[in-house]
Structure formats: C-alpha cells, structure tokens
C-alpha cells in the first residue's frame, strides 16, 4: 500500500469535522499507514464475482403506517441543548449556505 500523507489525513479530519494539531496529524498519519496496510488484506479475496453484503439480514419492505404519534414536549426536546432561546436550539453563527 502507498503511504497516506499528512495532508490526506488533514483532509479527512476536515471532512469529519475534527480539529487536529500538526503533531496529531503526523502521529495519526503514521498509525493510519500501519492500519491501512493491515486492512488492505480484504482486497486479496474481494474478486469481481463476489457480491457485496451490506447487511446480515435479508429483509425488505419494512414500513410503518402513516400515523401521527405524540412528539416530545419542547421542554424534553430541548432538555439536552447546550444553549437555547425562544424554544429553539441556540447555536453559534452558521457560516456558509445550506445544501
């Protein structure tokens, strides 16, 4: 396997929204290198003829009836909020547009 670079780890940390110091990134890059080397073994037997299994159960079509069930009270819904105002979750300013 090719080594995973520090920049690649920094990009992954950005995608995962985890702030990391340079030394953390360096450390993680070297660990990832070892781990990826070990887990890349899966490619040895993952031939084109093998179908993927994403789930151990072969269930399908599990649906719920369209029925309204009582919601939490707003007090319960907001009970864990680090900050709240006007019956809403109060969060630091959101920069950038929604999808």
């Amino acid at each position, binding site marked *: 396997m090719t080594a995973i670079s520090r920049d690649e780890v920094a990009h992954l940390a950005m995608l995962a929204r985890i702030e990391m110091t340079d030394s953390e990134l360096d450390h993680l890059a070297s660990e990832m290198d070892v781990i990826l080397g070990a887990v890349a073994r899966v490619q040895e037997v993952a031939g084109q003829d093998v179908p993927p299994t994403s789930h151990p159960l072969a269930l399908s*079509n599990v649906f719920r009836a369209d*029925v*309204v069930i009582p919601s939490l009270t707003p007090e319960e819904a907001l009970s864990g909020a680090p900050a709240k105002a006007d019956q809403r979750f109060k969060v630091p*300013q959101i920069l950038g*547009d929604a999808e």
Partner: protein
Amino acid sequence: MALTFNDAIAKYEPTLGLEVHVELNTLSKMFCGCATEFGAEPNTQTCPVCLGLPGSLPAVNGKAIESSILIGLALNCSIAPFSRFARKNYFYPDMPKNFQTSQFDEPICVNGYLDVEIETDEGMKVFRVEIERVHMEEDTGKSLHVGGATGRIHGAEYSLLDYNRAGIPLVEIVTKIIPGTGKYAPQVARAYVTELRDILRSLGVSDVKMEQGSLRCDANVSLAEIGSGKLGTRSETKNVNSLRSVERAVSGEMVRQANRLEKGERIIQETRHFLEESGETRPGRSKEQAEDYRYFPEPDLVPVTPDADWIETLRATLPEKPSLRRKRLKAEWNVPDKEMTSMVNAELLDTVEETVLLGADPTKARSWWLGEISRLANEKEVAPISLITPAQVAEVIALIAFGDLTDKLARQVVEGVISGEGTPAEVIEKRGLKVVSDDSALMVAIEAAIAAQPDTAERIRGGNIPAAGALIGAVMKATGGQADAAKVRELLLKHLGQS
C-alpha cells in the same frame, strides 16, 4: 454594452436541467411518527428520531413510498424492483444526524418523461422533458439567524434551530439535461414546473405550495455557442420560489452567463441564489473545501422491493393526467385557447369544474370566477376560492337561469356572500333582491317536466298521487335544488287537477 436576452439567444444555445424537491403531504414524517403540520410552534413536532438523538432509529413511512411510486408512474418512469436508502454524509447544523437519509445509486424510480406544451412563434408546441430519476429523502430543520446588520447568514451573531421540518418526506425529481429549447428555455422551465405541480396536485401527494416551500426548484443552466456541439459549464440556481421566478431565474442566468462568455470570462460551476427583487442571481457562499458525501447503504433500513402487484394496484389509482384533462374540458366546455390558459394560470380550473359539476353552465361558471370573483379577490389580495364556494356560485347561476335574479342583482348577491352576509338565499332574503316572487319560474320547470314524462303526468291525472315523486324530482334537479319541494308538489298537483 451589456448583452440583452435577445442578444444572448442570438449567439448561445442554453441547456437546462431541473431538480424539483417536493414535500409529501403525509400525516407523519418520513422516518418517525411526528406530525408534519406547517407553521407549528418551534420544536413541537420533534422526537428522538428526527432530532437525531443518540440511539434513535428510523422507520420508513409506507405512505411516502406509495406516494413516490405514484409520482414515478405519473411521470412515466420505471419503478425499480430493488431500491435502497443511503446516507449522504455532510455536516450542517440544521441536519440533526449530520447525514441525510437519501437515495443514491439505487433510486426508487428511473427513466421517465413529461411532455409540456408552450406557445411558440409557430403556435403551441410540445417539448418532451426526460426524467432521470425520482428519489426519496428527508427535509432539514430551519435556522433563524439573529443579530448582525441584516439578519442574513453573514453577520449573524448566533442562529436558532427549529427541527419541526426535519424529517418531513421529500421526493426529488431530477430531469436529464434538456437540450434544444433555444429562446424558449425560460418558458419550458416554467411549463415543466407548472405541469409537474399540477400532476402532483392531481395525485394528492403534496400541497405543492411554492411559497411555503413544499415545492422547490433548482435550475441548472449552461450556455454554449450555437452550433458548437459543446456543453457549457453549468450553474445551479436555488431559492426559486414561484413559477414566475423559475422563468425569471433561467432567463436571468442565461443573460448573466452570456455576458461573462462575451467578455471571455469562464463560467464557474457553482450554486447561486435567486434574488426575487432583481431577478438576478448571486453566488452561494462556497465552503472552504469541496465536500465528499461518502454515500453508503443506510444500515438502519432495509431495501424497498415493490412487486408487480403492488405497482399495478397503485397504477390503477392514477388520476387523469392534467394535460389530458385540460384537453377534455376544453372540448367539453368549448373554450378558446386563450380562455383556457387564463383559467390555468389563475389556478381556477378545479374550481370552475366543480361549479360546472354542480349544474352551472360552463361559460357562465368561467366568467363568474375569472371576472367578478377574481376582481374582488384581487382587491382583497386573497385566492378567489377563499371568498365563495363553487356551490354558492352554482346557486347564483341557477337563480339567474330561472329568472329569479338579473345579472346585476346577482352581482349584489355575490358581493353579499363575500362580505359575509350568509348564503345566497340569505342575502336575497335580507336584501330583498329576488326579482320574481310569483310561481311563474317554477311553472316553466314543471311544464318542462310534464312534457318530458307525459305518461307519468297521465297517471297522476288518473289519481296516482305517489307517481308525482318522479316529476317533483325532475323539477328539483332542473332548478339545481333551488325550489321548495312542497311548493313544487302543490303547484304540480294543482296543475294536473289533483287538488
């Protein structure tokens, strides 16, 4: 000198792509039992699932699946025998799980089309818009930005989140690229969204209210020099909240792109936002780095595998296509093109049809709704249907037909109903508006009934009183339920020498 729309289309050929998000009108959310009412108090329609609380799990609303299949069928799509939900991973505070449960490479419906008709220089012309896919996903919460100079996202000091909308079922309908529309691109875009909206409404699967966000359109536009055979770089315009805006956004974006190309500037592939006031678009605020959504099959849900029986059962419930219905009504009512278009644009087709079905003459029904009632509605800035019911309009039209009211008096009755004085009968009573107070109008109807059923009349003359029921019924029907049945009976029997 900046290029105008006409300059732009003289040199450039547009290519369109439209993505429409529809909020389904299910009672409960996509993955939990919370209610979906619009405009509820903040965070009153939330639970562990739609708040993304640790440990919670989604459970698919079966009605949402049925609605999605119906939409696919109405858009001539193939319904996938196997489809799955996937997680679209990205962080945004109004998305409680920081992934959206959506569909990726296994959508529920694929490969359909929708024909739309627009008026061109050569008359009415049909454009076929091909549909790439119809897939299911969930809506996000809503954020409110507080502080800062404008209250817009930038400069806000903090944001407030309401998750009532989070988890409301959404269906996304994505077209393939639409080539060859030329200068009609803005109209085709509008006609497509209009037709789609009418179909969705006829299916009863969504409120399709663009102003409330239950129907949202993103327009992809690119330009290439005519004859170049190339495809230009596209922009994606969001926040297009009315049919008129769809048309304006496409033409605005065509002009903007043409002007950039003319100056030798590159078109950037980006998300832009439509500005209602100016009809222009502004660039979205791009994130520092590109996202990578890392889709993978949602492990908390199982595949959707509709069998042929289920699909056919749903297909059998499909209502008449709005375009076919318009053709049929146009023929049945004998309406000119222009009038038909006026009714459609005013969103009065359903209302007029309902009035006609209650016995009113189509031409009269149309002229009342498009004329006097629309005028009053415009004054009050409300929808005509909120002022008066089709049954009341049908009643007024019947009264005119029987000569009880003149057109002039009828306008007063309608005005009275609209100002809350009660039903037409009550208004007539209170204002004393009835033209004819004798029985002559009823006698006309009674004589007509006798003429239509001479045998019955003969039996009554012979003393068979119960046979009068049939003639009374006919009179009641002819008067649109207007007449007093006891009075009809009295006049009828007297006329036939039985009292």
